[in-house]
């Protein structure tokens, strides 16, 4: 026994794996972001170091509940496949010949029906559901009249036609000088980037470089206090509805300003700061305000009224063709204190949660840490509240439930509102199967074969097909992983090792 222990010890010592890589390198490895040489070195180490393997596997995003990759059926032997293939081909030819003869004799119902079915497959599930709800006889009326063979055109409809992304806006958003908020005074100021010293040289001013290219096609037009007649609206959702109707280009943002008792605050000054600068409107007598045709991006919003503490909400996401609804609550108090409201998810007709946070000044390590910890607990509580509201849909009676998401072994999207006891299939697109899923609040992303990516921003009620494109190329590989850390930022991994990243909710993509 001693001899064996000696042998084992000697062999283990001989297998020294060298210095351990840092978390930086391991994280980059998992995300396929290392250059070949570095990757080789790292994998050499990880192959011999059980601790690093352990860390690597522990650090992988959760797979069992949130992200399940489907198992493929085992490969059949080529000869067998050929045999079955020949049989299938023969059957197909027979069916085609029979169908062609049948079609030449009489009206064609089945094929004519299949054309709209193909179109429906490319559309949002809401439209599909409406189509399914139509009585069968009504659906069959039109095709019965025709004797022509089904046209190939609907079959070749490009899925890109349904995309709602406006690529041109993205360049403008990123290139425009970002206004910042002076935290002490709450005043807007331009970027302090007039020159970038690079290796001792001065770089051309950012504003000068991008001003001509970055001008938006149509300037954002705030709707609200400036034109109160057009905004005779009753609720936050009606603000949203009107914005959605009036502003087909860009995103919209609107809401209500109220005090803690729920009474609306009229004449509150609401300032929106974002990629195109600052805009200010005044809330109408019903406390409503709205901004329309906003370029997609991250915005900050401030509200102030006499007798109330100013409120501030940061990281408000505005997405293309989406409307974000906010509820700003002003606390009563002196204007010197600022009430910060947490960021709202870009979900239509959902109100953002709020939490009061008085900004602290940094007073040394101990004080700063205590303040940070105190802030943590507040943030956590507000995030939890926010998430519950986001997913608390469909349960009725105001009961909030947490939706769990998964993929079935067949690739269907499923959710559960009872902690996984029962699962319901969520209709995303006809015939589509998925291999990867990522859920952040109400934002759900799924990916499947041949670059099929769908996104829902309302907890799976409606889905939009997304076609990630970068450098003139579309994502057309099988997707093995989708990972979003927040509603805007995430990555998609393909089976051939590509990584596609977005930081604006899928409107622009970067291929790595």
């Amino acid at each position, binding site marked *: 026994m001693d001899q064996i222990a000696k042998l084992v010890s000697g062999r283990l010592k001989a297998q020294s794996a060298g210095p351990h890589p840092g978390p930086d390198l391991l994280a980059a490895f998992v995300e396929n972001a290392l250059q070949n040489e570095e990757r080789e070195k790292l994998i050499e180490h990880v*192959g011999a170091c059980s601790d690093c393997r352990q860390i690597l596997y522990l650090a992988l995003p959760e797979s069992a509940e949130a992200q399940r990759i489907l198992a493929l059926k085992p490969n059949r032997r080529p000869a067998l496949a050929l045999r079955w293939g020949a049989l299938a081909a023969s059957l197909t030819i027979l069916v085609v010949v029979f169908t062609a003869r049948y079609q030449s004799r009489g009206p064609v119902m089945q094929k004519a029906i299949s054309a709209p079915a193909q179109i429906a497959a490319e559309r949002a599930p809401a439209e599909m559901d409406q189509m399914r709800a139509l009585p069968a006889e009504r659906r069959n009326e039109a095709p019965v009249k025709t004797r022509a063979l089904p046209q190939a055109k609907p079959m070749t409809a490009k899925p890109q036609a349904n995309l709602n992304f406006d690529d041109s806006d993205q360049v403008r958003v990123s290139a425009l000088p970002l206004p910042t908020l002076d*935290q002490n005074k709450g005043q807007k100021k331009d970027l302090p980037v007039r020159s970038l010293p690079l290796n001792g040289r001065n770089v051309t001013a950012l504003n000068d470089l991008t001003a001509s290219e970055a001008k938006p096609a149509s300037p954002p037009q705030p709707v609200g206090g400036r034109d109160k007649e057009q905004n005779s609206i009753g609720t936050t959702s009606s603000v949203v509805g009107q914005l959605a109707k009036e502003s087909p280009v860009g995103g919209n943002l609107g809401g209500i300003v109220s005090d803690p008792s729920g009474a609306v605050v009229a004449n509150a000054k609401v300032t929106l700061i974002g990629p195109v600068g600052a805009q200010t409107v005044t809330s109408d007598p019903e406390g409503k305000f709205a901004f329309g045709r906003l370029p997609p991006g991250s915005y900050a919003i401030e509200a102030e009224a006499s007798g109330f503490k100013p409120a501030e909400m940061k990281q408000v996401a505005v997405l293309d063709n989406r409307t974000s609804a906010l509820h700003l609550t002003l606390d009563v108090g002196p204007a010197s204190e600022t009430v910060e409201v947490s960021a709202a998810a870009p979900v239509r007709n959902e109100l953002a949660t709020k939490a009061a946070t008085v900004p602290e000044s940094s007073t040394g390590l101990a004080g700063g840490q205590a303040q*940070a910890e105190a802030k943590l607990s507040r943030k956590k509580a507000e995030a939890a509240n926010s998430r519950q509201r986001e997913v608390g849909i469909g349960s009725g009676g105001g009961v909030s439930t947490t939706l769990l998401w998964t993929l079935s072994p067949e690739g269907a999207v499923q959710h559960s509102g009872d902690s996984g006891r029962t699962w319901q299939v969520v209709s995303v697109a006809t015939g589509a199967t998925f291999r990867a899923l990522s859920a952040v609040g109400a934002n759900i992303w799924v990916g499947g074969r041949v670059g099929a990516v769908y996104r829902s921003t309302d907890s799976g009620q409606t889905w939009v097909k997304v076609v990630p494109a970068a450098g003139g190329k579309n994502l057309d590989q099988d997707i093995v992983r989708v990972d979003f850390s927040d509603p805007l930022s995430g990555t998609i991994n393909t089976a051939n090792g590509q990584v596609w990243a977005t930081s604006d909710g899928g409107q622009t993509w970067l291929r790595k």
Partner: protein
Amino acid sequence: MSATSQRGVEPTVETALETAMTDLYAKSRAAEFGLGSAQFVAILEDIAAKHAPAAEPYSRLHVEDLVLARACAAGNEHAWEVFLLRFREKLYDVARQITREDSAGRELADSVYADLFGTRIREGDRISKLTSYSGRGSLDGWLRTVLAQEYVNTYRKQRRLVSLDEEEEDGAQFAAASNDSPMPADSRLEKAVDEALRSVSAEDRFVLASYFLDGRTLVQIARALSVHESTISRKVEKLTKVVRKQILKSLARQGMSRRQAEEALAADVRDLTVDIRATLAQDSLQPPFSEERAKAGEGGS
């Protein structure tokens, strides 16, 4: 290329580089977090000098995450607010996922948060672990790895206090390095296995170690390597055949006949498995990611 033409090209390259840097600065939201352009450029140049081996060093960096991390490390209040909004809940969720227990997860996340905030002071400055983030992977992935690393470190420190039964109950979580496995009777077989494992690529050894030694599933290995699980399934099958073939060849080189070699392999299949495990294993009692190294990493960045 002549000197004249070089002079003609240089300004274009410089302009392109400067434009790219300006774009990156705008994209990174550095100004929002109080990082000046000079600081931003210095951070990127520092990272490029340390980590980026190829041309276009900045194009692959997660500059937005990088700027957020550095701004937090510098104590910017707004940066911390953004960081907490984005990662606070996630930090606890991942910690719970790693520890598989609520209280342990909370403890782990708190411990890592303290490191991120920085509890040590060097020359009057608070040292935050976030300074060691270089932006090559996402900040989200980096945080996951830091949590996992802290968990493994804590486990290894307490390892001698954990009973063997408990360790076994953990299953694959800490199934590595079983040192008490019997060695093959014939040293030629041992040598042959070593040679066979050396003949396969590093990635293949990683797959073998993960599959045979750690007991990882095909799905886990596939996700670690960003490939589909069917690829790993085929690879494991193929590697097993290749290793077996190499062992037979090696035994033949050592003087065994084909039949003897086959018998040596067939005598006890468990020996071969054990041998693979032992060969792939390393001395995990050696303290990984020691405090000194962590300190050096933080200080160096």
